């Protein structure tokens, strides 16, 4: 007997198929069918699944999220205004998964940058848009067989963004993709799909920004495929600032060619249950990736970061740095898995996860995993869990700073490690402000909680790699 939730997914799938009947190309319909087959066969994972050990999806699976029709929710310029980013090259606004041209601004694009809604890119003739056609990219990298959320997204996506940076183009202002959930009086689901093609020697920054208008619970299940050509330099920002009732699962799958340099910056501040999957494949020799993140939660927020870094070629370099700040009953997960394939000699992989727990009830689970099939590799990892040190707090207060301000400053200093790994520019400024504001809230709301008692030193957790494979 199917639950209401299950029936909703099924209805959504049938609607998507029916709506696309006339214009969707065969390859896309095939992808959808395969995705749906996978999702309906597997369902949502449970905590028995090793990759989901620390994150219970029961509440997500149980909630009957609904796919909404295109114009069911009206979102005005006034609703969007607070989320606009100053200094962006262009802004695409999606409401409940649908592109809204009236709220978007992609008219005057810098030369070498192409940005439009993904559906439009597919409709308008393939070779025109992407080299070899979008079908060469969409669904090629994000693996529906590995991950049911990818499968579900592939079956159900309505729209998303298509970004292409032409060979050698240097785009210094960020592309802002704003994904808005606007609950139309009920829990709604969206499955945004984004394809980014950064061609050879190009440079660009894309910000994927998830927000909610209103307080209703939503479920955003986003998949982004990013292809970085030879020598491309690319920064991807994920900003999760939806309301505290939201479920957000996002997957960034990057494919890096020779010497491509990709940075993924994740800033998780909102959401009730967030799962942030980052999966770079270093496919070309000498490719480099930085996987940088900050997650800050309070109340009962659950912020799960699942990193899977695949070294598939020699001489590649990966750096993972995640900092977590958890207050109240918030819970964080950092799962960092590194796979070094057989030919990936001279791999240099590093992973660091640092955490600040602001209350006795906050919790972090860190799980480093290493799977090595090459012999000449260097992999290191470290994880720490600490508290705000009473001594530091006293030092700041002894100079006149209030307890809340002192806490705020210490939290900010901890978060700044993450900010300092971002290139200067509009995207960094944007997240810097968001982080400041969020930490200010956390510092105020936890100022009366335990100040870390008498224990001073941040404890170093020595945890060994779990060897797999």
């Amino acid at each position: 007997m199917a639950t209401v939730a299950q029936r909703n997914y099924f209805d959504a799938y049938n609607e998507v198929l029916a709506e696309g009947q006339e214009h969707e190309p065969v390859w896309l319909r095939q992808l959808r069918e395969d995705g749906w087959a996978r999702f309906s066969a597997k369902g949502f994972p449970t905590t028995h699944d090793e990759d989901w050990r620390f994150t219970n999806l029961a509440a997500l699976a149980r909630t009957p999220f609904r796919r909404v029709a295109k114009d069911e929710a009206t979102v005005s310029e006034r609703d969007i205004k607070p989320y606009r980013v100053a200094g962006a090259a262009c802004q695409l606004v999606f409401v409940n998964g649908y592109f809204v041209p009236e709220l978007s601004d992609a008219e005057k694009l810098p030369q070498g940058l192409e940005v439009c809604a993904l559906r439009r890119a597919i409709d308008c003739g393939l070779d025109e848009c992407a080299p070899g056609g979008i079908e060469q990219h969409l669904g090629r990298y994000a693996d529906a067989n590995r991950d049911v959320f990818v499968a579900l997204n592939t079956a159900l996506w309505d729209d998303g963004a298509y970004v292409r940076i032409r060979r050698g183009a240097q785009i210094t202002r960020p592309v802002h993709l704003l994904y808005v959930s606007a609950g139309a009086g009920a829990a709604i689901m969206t499955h945004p799909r984004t394809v980014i093609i950064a061609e050879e020697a190009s440079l660009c920054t894309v910000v994927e920004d998830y927000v909610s208008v209103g307080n209703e619970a939503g479920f955003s299940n986003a998949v982004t495929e990013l292809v970085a050509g030879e020598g491309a330099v690319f920064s991807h920002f994920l900003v999760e600032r939806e309301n505290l009732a939201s479920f957000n699962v996002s997957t960034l799958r990057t494919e890096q060619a020779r010497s491509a340099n990709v940075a993924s910056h994740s800033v998780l501040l909102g959401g009730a249950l967030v799962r942030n999957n980052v999966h770079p494949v270093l496919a070309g020799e000498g490719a480099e990736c930085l996987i940088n993140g900050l997650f800050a939660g309070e109340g009962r927020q659950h912020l799960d970061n699942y990193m899977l870094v695949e070294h598939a070629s020699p001489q590649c370099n990966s750096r993972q740095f995640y900092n977590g700040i958890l207050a109240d009953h918030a819970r964080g997960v950092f799962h960092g898995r590194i796979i070094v394939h057989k030919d990936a000699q001279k791999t240099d992989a590093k992973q660091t996860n640092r955490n600040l727990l602001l209350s006795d009830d906050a919790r972090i689970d860190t799980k480093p995993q290493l799977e090595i099939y090459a012999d000449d590799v260097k992999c290191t990892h470290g994880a720490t869990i600490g508290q705000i040190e009473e001594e530091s707090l006293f030092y700041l207060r002894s100079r006149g700073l209030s307890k809340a301000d002192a806490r705020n400053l210490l939290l900010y200093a901890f978060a700044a490690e993450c900010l300092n790994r971002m290139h200067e520019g509009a995207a960094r400024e944007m997240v810097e402000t968001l982080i400041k504001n969020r930490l200010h809230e956390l510092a105020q709301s936890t100022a009366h909680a335990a100040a870390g008692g008498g224990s001073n030193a941040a404890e170093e957790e020595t945890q060994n790699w779990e060897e797999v494979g």
Partner: protein
Amino acid sequence: MALLEIQNLHASVNGHEILKGLDLTVNAGEVHSIMGPNGSGKSTLAAVLARRETYEVTQGRVLFDGKDLLEMDPEEAACEGLFLAFQYPVEIPGISNAYFLRSAMNAVRKYHGEDELDAMDFLPLYKERMKLLEMDEQLMNRSVNEGFSGGEKKRNEILQMAMLEPKLAILDETDSGLDIDALRIVANGVNAMRSPKRGFLVITHYQRLLNYIAPDFVHVLVDGKIARSGGPELALELEAKGYGWAEENEQVLPA
């Protein structure tokens, strides 16, 4: 009215009584030196006065400029004009010295209803005071005390004091571990700050600092109490005879 008036102060940490009935009066314009053996309670006294919460006052009274100091939080005491130069200054990664100090000064200004200093007002003053303490300007952008040498940390404490211009400055072994140049620099910094409106409590083990900073009074703290008080000559006597002498001849002279 005295600047600081301590009466029968008892304080414990983790249930151990460390201060056992301490009396001390400091008037504006005076420099008092506190000496005493390791573990006698000098830093405890400093921490209690700076209102560190891990130290519990069990008895006694402390008036700071006429107000009940023991009712104040650390930040209130600081804003009222009390400054502690730490025996072990704390490293704060990720916060620059300049940002930290400007935030501190603005917190104090806000407390007194004054306008905030912006970077333009702050920097020239900061640079000038850095010169006084012969500190490299580059240090201002580095994280608070992070990777500083022992001497740099101590100079940074005095620099903060010079910027915050407190009514009462407590220096806890600011001289310990300083080479002769650093000692001279720190002492110059302190001397430049001496004024008829300001009091100092200088905790030290050695006469050598007192050669530069001539104290008006010297007290010997033994086992949580002032065992002996006198003029500058007391420090010399202690240096010659050791603390044992002060303990045996316990007598409290009126300051």
